[in-house]
Structure formats: structure tokens, C-alpha cells
């Protein structure tokens, strides 16, 4: 590497993207951090405190306790995905992504910067929702390492997915279609509000195609010690999805799809 392009210059570039992303998230906190806290508080009140009392137990746990990990995951997934789509597509739309494209930064650094920004937001809102949940059901922590690793890996996987969406998006509608018609149904059917073991035979098999089932269950294990799927399968699925999405993102960025003429 030349003097101007070195591991240190790449590190500074990565830090710059991250600082810029974190600053943006904190500057517009009323759009990024506050809404998930309010929405999840309503979920806890309605599904946990009001309806939950009539539901009884789910997966051997009080319903309120059962839905907490899923709702935190729901927040992490939507925020990591949404952060990258809005930020990267916004940069593309406003053409300031060209600041990065003409710089010496290689695609993997640009990708790492945006993904890290999304993870920051996902972890921040995840933590806030966990604090709110603690108010309703108390604080649980069965396995700290599993909880944190699943939280981070899930945020990375959906940030990568959001990045692909942002690369292909041509207009603002394009970044809301996938979250509305794909992500939301997958999340709601991914065992957030129910145990997949309750599903009849074939539906249970279909549910297991959904990667969110593995993330929610692994995270539920981390917080509460119960899961519908073996932990190693959950980690394997998360890593496979993450690796595939990372490869796709890097290839799209390297070829300049949607970015370079």
C-alpha cells in the first residue's frame, strides 16, 4: 500500500462513516430512537398486560415474559434494516454517496461503516426496549453471551439485507415495499407472539424456513433459557444468512450496481 492508502487510512475512513452515522441517529433521535420505544410500550401494555393475562402461559412461561425477547428482536430487526435503507438510499438519492465512491475507500470498508451504524441504532433501541420491558416483566438474563451475540448478529444480518434493498432502490417507495410486505410478515410469523411448536405439522415445517424463527428463539434462550430450536442450528442459520448477504453486498458494491454508471 502507498503512504496515502494504508490500513490506518482505511481505519480512519471506517471511523468517519461510523461517526457520521451515529451523529445522524442521535441528531434525529425523535425519528430513530423514540418511536420503537413507544410502539413496544404499547405492545407490552396491550399484548402483555391486557390480553396476555387471558392467554396464560406460552412455552412454559407467562405470556408477558414470553413476548419480551421477540419484541426486542422485532425492534432490532426493523431498526437495523431501516437505518441502512434510509441512510444509504438517502445518500444515493441526494448523490452525497459520491463522496464515498470517489474516495480511496474499498467497498468492504464502506459496507462495514454503514453496517456498524445500523448495529449501533439496533443495539440502542434494543436496550431501550429491554428497559421498558423490565418495567412490565422484570429483568431476565439467562445467558449474557448468547443474548449479546444473537442481538449483534441479527442486527448485522438485517443491516446487510437493508443494504441490498438500498442498492437496488430507485425511489423512496422501493425502501418501504420489502419492510411492509416481506419483513413484517416474516417477523410476525417468526415466533414473536407464539411458540412455533403450537403450529400444526406442515405449518411448523414452513415456519422453520423463516430465519427470524431462529433469531427469536436463540435470543429467547439467552434471556429466558427456553427455545423451540436447538441453539447450534440457530447460530448456523444466522451465520449462513449473514455470510451469503455479506457476499452479495460486497459483490454489488464492487461492481457498482445502482451506484456507478
Amino acid at each position, binding site marked *: 500500500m502507498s503512504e*496515502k492508502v494504508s490500513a490506518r487510512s*482505511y481505519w480512519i475512513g471506517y471511523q*468517519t462513516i461510523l461517526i457520521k452515522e451515529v451523529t445522524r441517529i442521535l441528531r434525529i433521535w425523535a425519528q430513530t430512537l423514540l418511536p420503537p420505544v413507544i410502539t413496544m410500550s404499547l405492545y407490552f401494555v396491550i399484548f402483555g398486560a391486557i390480553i396476555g393475562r387471558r392467554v396464560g402461559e406460552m412455552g412454559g412461561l407467562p405470556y408477558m415474559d414470553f413476548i419480551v425477547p421477540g419484541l426486542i428482536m422485532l425492534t432490532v430487526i426493523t431498526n437495523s434494516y431501516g437505518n441502512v435503507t434510509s441512510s444509504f438510499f438517502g445518500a444515493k438519492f441526494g*448523490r452525497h454517496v459520491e*463522496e464515498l465512491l*470517489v*474516495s*480511496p475507500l474499498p467497498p468492504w470498508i464502506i459496507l462495514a461503516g454503514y453496517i456498524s451504524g445500523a448495529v449501533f441504532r439496533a443495539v440502542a433501541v434494543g436496550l431501550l426496549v429491554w428497559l421498558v420491558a423490565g418495567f412490565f416483566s422484570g429483568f431476565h438474563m439467562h445467558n449474557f453471551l448468547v443474548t449479546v451475540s444473537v442481538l449483534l448478529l441479527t442486527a448485522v444480518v438485517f443491516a446487510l439485507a437493508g443494504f441490498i434493498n438500498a442498492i437496488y432502490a430507485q425511489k423512496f417507495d422501493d425502501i418501504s415495499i420489502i419492510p411492509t410486505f416481506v419483513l413484517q410478515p416474516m417477523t410476525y410469523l417468526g415466533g414473536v407472539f407464539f411458540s412455533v411448536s403450537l403450529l400444526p405439522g406442515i405449518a411448523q415445517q414452513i415456519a422453520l424456513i423463516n430465519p427470524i424463527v431462529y433469531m427469536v428463539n436463540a435470543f429467547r434462550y439467552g434471556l429466558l433459557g427456553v427455545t423451540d430450536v436447538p441453539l447450534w442450528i440457530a447460530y448456523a442459520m444466522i451465520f449462513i444468512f449473514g455470510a451469503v448477504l455479506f457476499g452479495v453486498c460486497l459483490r454489488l458494491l464492487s461492481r457498482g450496481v445502482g451506484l*456507478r*454508471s
Partner: protein
Amino acid sequence: MKALEVRQLRKTYKNGVVALKGIDLDVAEGDFFALLGPNGAGKSTLIGIVSSLVNASSGETRVFGISVQNDRSRAMAEIGLVPQEVNFNQFEKPFDIVVNQGGYYGVPRAVAKQRAERYLTQLGLWDKAFRMSRTLSGGMKRRLLIARAMVHEPRLLILDEPTAGVDIEIRRSMWRFIREINEAGTTVILTTHYLEEAENLCRNIAIIDHGQIVENTSVKTLLGKLDIETFVLDLRSPIEHAPVVDGMEIVLRDPTTLEASIPKSRSLNGLFQVLERHGIQVKSMRNKANRLEELFVRLVHLDDGAAPAAAAGEQETPA
């Protein structure tokens, strides 16, 4: 060493538009180089390829000997780009925009902050450094683009119509700044519609038309090729007919304005002798157009109607 080498560069867009038809171009280190051409000639495509925003269909581009196609990161570290259109985040502050750009080029944050202050001050923007960029005027935004391009102190500065739509006072201050940058050793490539700008600032020039280089020489040599000059003469009293002068073309534009096209081989004295004989008194005289503009029009085969539009600084539509 050459700051820029372009070899057999071709670009065909997906819609079939052929923007570059195999061009060759060299820009020497330390040069102040003008790239001229009418709208859609391929200037922006060429700059896009050099700055890696556009992928070439074939050919090679080298910046200080480093291949843009094979060693993009190292090549980009040498370039500062001032794009034709404002492309920074208008919801950020000028100071942050410049500092962050420094970060993308590996400039430590503390150093980037010092440079941001220096360049924003030099470009008369320091008092606006912490305002939202969207509140800046058009001229200020253009100067911010220059400050942003300079923060990593590139060896090659490419300016794509930097003064389009900027008033003359600010344009002149921008010229001064860019000239100083060049004198300090930075190679400058400038595309512009203001041909006066190219004539005043640049040492060498390439004219691109329909994706091909139609002229590539020094400004001095190019101007030497101009064999006819046109003068506008304001008359003291109205006349009815233009006088006939052998070997010159004299046209009466209105009763008190004559336009005389005179070959360089002929003396102006001959014209004045004829005017004297006809009792025509000249109040004042000026060049009809910028000299380079006349050549430009000839080289790219523009008709009389198209030339003023180019000189007026119309925005080029990217191919």
C-alpha cells in the same frame, strides 16, 4: 511524470449511447489544463471515468502512473473532484462536510479540522462553516465543493464547470484560489463553458466533440491558429451602407455599428484608410467575441446560434 494518461478510452452506456470513442489524452504534472466541448460531447463521462464514478467500457486511465481500473484506491487518493452539481448532504454543516471528506481519504480528524478551517477561510466560507449547508447561496455551495475537494490535498484537482452560475466577483475569487493551488504544484484539470476562463487560466487545452478529441495543444498554439479576427466598430454618425474593403468582410449591423472580419495577414490601417475615405468616423472598437470562443465554434462546427449559448454557461446535460 504525467498526472493523467488516458489510452483508447471508450464508453458505451447501457442505452446504447456512445459517449467516448477511444480517446487518448495526456496531462503533464503541474499543468493547468482545460477540457472544452459542447453539451453531450463526453467531458463529464471522461471525468466520471477518471474519478471512478463511471466504469469504462474499454481502455486505460492512469493517474500519476497508477491505474484507475486496476488500483482504484491508490489512484483515487491522488484526485480531488469538484463535480458539476452540488452533491453534499445539504442537512450537514460545511465544516462537517469537509472534515468527513478528509476522513474518507484517511486524513486524521484533528488534521482534517485544521485544513477545513484553512480552506473554508481561504474560500470566504468560515463565517458560514457551522450553518446548515442548504442555507448557503449557489456561489457558496460551489466554493464548499472546492474546499471539500482540497481537504486531502490532492496532486490532481479536477473541476467540472466550477463557476457555472456564479457571479463575476466570486468567479474571479475562485480563479485566484485555483491559480494559487496550481502555482503551489497541484495539477488542475478544468472543464468550463466560460471560454474566457480557459483562455485566462489554462496553459494547455483539449477540445472534445462527439466523444473524440478534436484538438489537444497549448492555448497559445491554438490561439495562433486563429487567422481571422472580428471587430465591432461603433460609429459616431449613422451610415446607410457598409463600405467595401478588398480582402475583408464588412457588415453593417445597424446604422451606427459595423462588424469587420479581418485576416491576421492584413493590417488594420487599410480598414481605417477606407473608412476615412468614406468619411466614416469610429467612436470605439472592440473584439466581437472571446478569441478562444471563435476557435471553439469552428472546431466543433457549431452554427452562430449555438455559440452564444455555450458561452453563456448553460449546464451540460450528463450523458
